[in-house]
């Protein structure tokens, strides 16, 4: 967390974000009352399983739900002192790819198969620099390819996405996202589709570029290792809600929510004996059309019976100062369970 000496807004501030989709099966409440912020130069990790609302949140920041007529976004999204939920389509379009950019999960499907990688980067640059001629834009694109570590960028400029290796493709994708010096970079599981050996390189690259450009970064992942390595702050999402957030170090050393314990327990570790099994979170993610009442995690929570006399039918509020958690368990009980039952098995 930044030291709050000034009252200036963080570079990105999201307040009470709600995203819902009207479908034939009912209303999908994809994100509920999500609040978070990222300062320039900081990295926020958003973790959670599939369908927890991570990607929907980031697409909402970019305004990419606007083209879906069945999507409804409410709340506030402030980017550099500009409110985006109430902004016009054109205002948001001008920010997209300019001040804020996104890297997607699978770079092969995220790049157009029929246009060269270079031309796609040039296109991204020229949308936000309309006066720039093709030659200058081309030089800029080649320069970006070189900066993300693609060898022989002049030659690779004319290649298509399918001619790149997985890692190089993601590098090119990063070059495309960074071509306009965005101050907010959202990376949606940028290493999931890559070989393990390449994953670390890509993460290093993102970190180096962040240092260089001073951007705010949102790293969306289900890989806690990635968050531990890169993030300053962590947001844990479950069933479309933020259930725990705080400084990364604090959340990892002293996790408060049973779901976060579950995520930590399902991480494979090399220092663990082979005979030990992973401890996955039992059960399956909740349906976003029909969320469990109260705490959405309670049907899967192994400690749901130990909440004293509090009812699970109420929605737990995020509470705490810097490190916040939404859980019905009394803090003392949480500490005790974590120390005695969870930690020894991690």
């Amino acid at each position, binding site marked *: 967390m930044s030291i709050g000496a000034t009252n200036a807004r963080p570079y990105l501030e999201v307040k009470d974000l709600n995203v819902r989709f009207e479908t034939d099966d009912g209303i999908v409440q994809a994100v509920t009352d999500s609040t978070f912020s990222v300062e320039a130069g900081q990295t926020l990790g958003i973790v959670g399983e599939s369908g927890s609302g991570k990607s929907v949140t980031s697409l909402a920041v970019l305004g990419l739900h606007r083209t879906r007529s069945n999507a409804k976004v409410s709340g506030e999204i402030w980017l550099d002192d500009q409110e985006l939920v109430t902004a016009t389509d054109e205002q948001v379009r001008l920010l997209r790819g300019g001040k804020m950019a996104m890297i997607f999960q699978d770079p092969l499907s995220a790049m157009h*198969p029929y246009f060269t990688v270079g031309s796609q980067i040039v296109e991204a640059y020229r949308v936000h620099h309309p006066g720039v001629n093709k030659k200058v834009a081309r030089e800029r694109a080649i320069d970006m390819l070189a900066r993300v570590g693609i060898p022989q960028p002049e030659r690779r400029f004319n290649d298509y996405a399918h001619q790149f290796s997985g890692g190089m493709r993601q590098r090119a994708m990063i070059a495309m996202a960074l071509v306009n010096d965005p101050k907010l970079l959202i990376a949606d599981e940028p290493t999931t589709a890559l070989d393990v050996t390449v994953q670390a390189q890509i993460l290093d690259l993102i970190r180096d570029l962040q240092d260089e450009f001073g951007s705010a970064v949102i790293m969306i992942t289900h890989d806690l290792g990635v968050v531990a390595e890169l993030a300053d702050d962590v947001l844990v999402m479950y069933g479309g809600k933020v259930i725990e957030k705080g400084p990364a170090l604090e959340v990892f050393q002293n996790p408060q929510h049973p779901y976060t314990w579950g995520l930590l327990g399902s991480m494979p570790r090399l220092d663990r004996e082979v005979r030990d099994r992973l401890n996955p979170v039992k059960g399956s993610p909740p349906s976003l059309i029909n969320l469990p009442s109260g705490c959405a995690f309670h049907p899967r929570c192994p400690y749901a019976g130990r909440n004293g006399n509090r009812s699970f039918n109420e929605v737990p509020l995020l509470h705490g100062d810097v490190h916040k958690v939404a859980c019905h368990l009394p803090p003392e009980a949480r500490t005790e369970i974590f120390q005695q039952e969870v930690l020894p098995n991690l």
Partner: protein
Amino acid sequence: MLAYLIRRLFNAVLTLLVVTAVTFGIFFLVPKATGTDPALLYIGKTSDAASVEGIRVKMGLNDPIVVQYGKFLKGLVAGRDYANGPDVQHCPAPCLGYSFKTDQEVTPLLLGDLPVTLSLALGAAVLWLIMGISTGVISALRRGTVLDRVVMGGALAGVSLPIYFTGLLASAIFVYWLGWLPQGEYVPFTESPGDWFVQLILPWITLAFLFAATYARLTRANMLEILGEDYVRTARAKGLRERAVIGKHALRSSLTPIVTVFGLDLGALLGGAILTEKVFNLRGLGYQALTAIQGNDLPIILGVTLIAASFIVIANLIVDLVYGLIDPRVRLA
């Protein structure tokens, strides 16, 4: 690439050879099955035995089928002479023989019909591409709206209604009732481009309506699929205008499969649009084929079949080559 091209050309020639063999086989078998003597078809049933035998010799009808087929192939490639003693008739390559009915050389006869069919097919193709793709895109973008349903309903009608219905209806309305278009027949482009155009408007529209319907449905389906692709989302994430997202990124991919269909449709149509030509009295290859079938004029049927098959084979080849250009993921090898 060159090796690929040579192999494809070789395959194309081989395909055509098989087509000639099959059609020639039918050509040989049909008279047998119906009990008619091809020689009689040439000179009429009233002729005396000597002149019938003369025709047999001249046309080589007494030879075994393999020899006849060989001579036919030779005629196609190098031309051939039909001879009965001193009576020699030279048929230059590509020789398709003589019409049973009129004794005209088939090749020049069909070449004379080709411009009519070409005019009809190419004009209609331009129209249906414009109509089909634009309505398909609009329909996809306005999915589920009244407009989408109206357009897709129209497309369903277009696919279902036969030419002899829409064609006659269009003639009745625009020529006889409203009088917007003159009654008349095909005028060659070289004679009067204006009249050529006016005379072809209705056939073009009628034929294009049929095809545009298919293309609209195809474009709509492709477009809807492509709009869900990750790279369309990327295009939006870059801040591109919606017009560029749709018109450049999405359309580019949506049209690729249409190239294949279009090539084959056009190839098939160039072999003659029998119904359209008949309905609008356009004397093209299709009309010729229809007349020949009705009159049992086998050499002409054989000729039209060969030309139609050639167009399809050539269209196939062109489609494959073009596909390699428009989809960089396809390696021609």
